[in-house]
């Protein structure tokens, strides 16, 4: 059983870890680094509960090996709040009731965080398309769309 010494930077902090080849990135984050905001929902790349940013791109961390992330930047939900200030998306999800059970929420936040980086003022259709790899069983998506629009507007004002 081969192991690898890797270094990953998660939310700006570098971590050294020894990992088995087959260790999934989501398990590295959850079980070893104890960043449990990233969830597991389906194991088959369908639900997006495990979404994190890998070098800025949202990916499903249940379908990436931890060792693939060696030397790379990972952002998780725990890193969204900066200096005690919520990210506009976090504000938006709270303000617009964009979550219920909260289980898909970290994945939704990370996916839409990347969306707002590349698209300043996304349409409803664009938002729906962007989150179509993230399943939510509670909200019916209406308020998630509103939450993202709220954040886009907030970010526009801040810019």
């Amino acid at each position, binding site marked *: 059983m081969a192991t690898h010494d890797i270094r990953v930077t998660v939310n700006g902090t570098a971590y050294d870890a020894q990992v088995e080849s087959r260790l999934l990135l989501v398990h590295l984050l959850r079980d070893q680094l104890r960043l449990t*905001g990233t969830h597991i929902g389906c194991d088959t790349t369908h*639900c997006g*509960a495990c979404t994190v940013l890998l070098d800025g791109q949202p990916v499903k961390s249940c379908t990436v090996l931890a060792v693939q992330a060696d030397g790379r930047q990972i952002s998780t*939900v725990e890193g969204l*709040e900066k200096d005690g200030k919520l990210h506009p998306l976090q504000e938006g999800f709270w303000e617009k009731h964009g979550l*219920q059970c*909260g289980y898909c929420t970290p994945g939704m936040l990370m996916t839409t965080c990347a969306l707002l980086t590349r698209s300043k003022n996304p349409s409803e259709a664009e938002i729906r398309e962007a989150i179509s790899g993230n399943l939510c*069983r509670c909200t019916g998506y209406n308020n998630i769309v509103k939450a993202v629009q709220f954040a886009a507007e907030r970010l526009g004002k801040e810019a």
Partner: protein
Amino acid sequence: MQPRTTPEVGGMGHSMKRKEDPRFIRGKGNYVDDIVLPGMLWMDIVRSPFAHAKIKSINTEKALKVPGVLAVITGETLAKYNLHWMPTLMSDTQMVLPTEKVMYQAQEVAAVIATSRYAAADGVDAVEVDYEPLPVVVDPFKALEPNAPVLRTDKKDKKDNRIFHWEAGDRAGTEKAFAEAEVTVKQDLYIPRIHVASIETCGCIADFDRVNGKLTVYMTTQAPHAIRTVFALVAGHVGLSEERIRIVSPDIGGGFGGKVPVYPGYVIAVAASVVIGKPVKWIEDRMENLQADSFARDYHITAELAAKKDGTITALRMKTLADHGYTDAAANPSKFPAGLFSICTGSYDVKKAFVEVDGVYTNKPPGGIAYRCSFRVTEAVHAIERVTDVLAQQLKMDPAELRMKNFIPKEKFPYKSALGWEYDSGDYPAALRLAMDKIGYHALRKEQAEKRARGELMGIGISSFTEILGAGPSKQFDILGIKMFDSCELRIHPTGKAIARFGTKSQGQGHETTYAQIIAEELGIPASAVQVEEGDTDTAPYGLGTYASRSTPVAGAAGALAARKIREKAKKIAAHLLEASEEDLVWETGKFSVKGAPSRSKTIQEIAFAAYTNHPPGMEAGLEAVNYYDPPNLTFPFGSYICVVDIDRGTGMVKIRRFVAVDDCGNIINPMIVDGQIHGGLTMGMAPALLEEISYDENGNIQGGSFMDYLLPTAVESPSWETYKTVTPSPHHPLGAKGVGESATVGAPPAIANAVVDALAHLGVKHVDIPITPEKVWRILKEKGVAE
């Protein structure tokens, strides 16, 4: 409803931001799989590839050699403690682990205990089981044939596969009404097996402390107290005593009914922890969740209506075959083997009705649990709303007009239905009128006529549903004998803040916010200063849990009444402080003042402080109350939904163009949360209407056992929902509220199905079973010669 309190107090009617959200948006929720205990071991489960097979042998030798694997638990292991079978909530029996045969594909066969998730999975791979396949019974109709193999060979006297026969209503009177009817219609419907598929799967950590003999189980359960009692009843003989069992239901990633049952995995983990003396974690994966956890629906219904030529419905008859899988593990109140299916007269003033349901065993996983629905109400509503449209078509009447004609009139409430329910309140025409107005019904009918002339397919579907919630009054409602009350224990702290604990358990419904708002409404203590706790059986008062939209109708009422008890005591304290008599005091939100002298007043905060510092002589100190609320009746929320669909003539693909939902759930605690519940319910209603189904091939192999084929709607399939309200308070609920969590899941499917049938009605189509897949529609188009 105008809020009576200020936004700062945040009582009923305020769209207060949720108090639970700060942890969720930071990734700081605390779900079962987030919890790690020192020394914790992992459990993973070996499952059967066969739907019916004798277990000839289980060889654990190789598995025990896998690095990290400590033990393999089989049915034989559990049989030593007589823990290999357990009772179901419906007083049937269910295997924890088999000793003789498996009864469905993916059934638990053995469990591997290991030092890590990964080692446990490797261990599962290495367990060798030798099976001898047995004849499989998949079709519930065939299960009842005389030559069908009897599945429950464990039951000595069982000679067939029938579980129960249940009926309600007036058989003879209904038959007579049908015989005399001017018009009758009859429709067979299948409401397929579906799965709640909450995004968090099920799991637990069982932690048995050998030193003090205490078992703590962190588990994904919607009903922690009932689970504790079940554990005490099941494992009492091996020394687990109820005071030494603590069930903790932490944050739950969606429940919808799927987290009510006691699954074998929980019990095996408990047994493993008791035997090994270390915490054992079991988290099922998605395929286990879809393939082995309890399912919903699976009702084969024949629905009939009798009517006059003018459209007046005179009688209703329904006959149903219910496929329960290999055991009756439904999560219904004990006296209701078919749940509340007898709400199937719906929103209509039907004079005569008769309904019967037969439950059947097949080689499928157990169930009959909810899918965001109160005890079989969705099945009932789908049947009545579909067959009502069949009648409209038969009579060539507009479906809206037919509904208007038959609605129970507003002035007839409380209304006693032909099947025995007393509907508390309603104004059905108002809801339908509002929905028609908002969607522009008449313009849509015009557009449809024009499109039909051009060969385009568009349909408009209506569903005017009535729900039945808030189980339930103790004279009828119990689970394993435990009456279906719910509870609140409320304590006001000296500085006027509060903690309120409830017997329910939120899985995303926002109890921490809405319950606080109820307390705020009743006492004027700001909702932000009311801490709500649930889910820990060591601290919360006993309650039956959260499912069937019962939290607001039952526990919410308990909260209001506990607060009113506090107010009674507060009044005495205020009288003491103000040196006035109680009769001279008037309450307005947050304070008592002396009649005619409003400046002489004491706020609830001042009174709370006095309760601990200056309480009247002869009175107990403190300010606390407990209420166990036994509802006098159920609540009957309702609504009218209208859906517009367009159909692609080439592919049969159905697209929901618009969907207007008018809901009436009585008085509203938090409008934002109510809307959120409805949005979510609509998407979960649209899912089985168009996408979701679990079926089996002739060998009992599950079809749709992963998210590859079990199709949860994404934001792209889910339309933008348009929601509106009417408000008809419940006359018997302390807050006039009715509950709302499941209305939309119940009401949406027939609106969508009716819209699709409506789009095809001019071709002579009367019915399409859900899920309405593109191929089903395309086959109709082809048969009718209109496919592209």
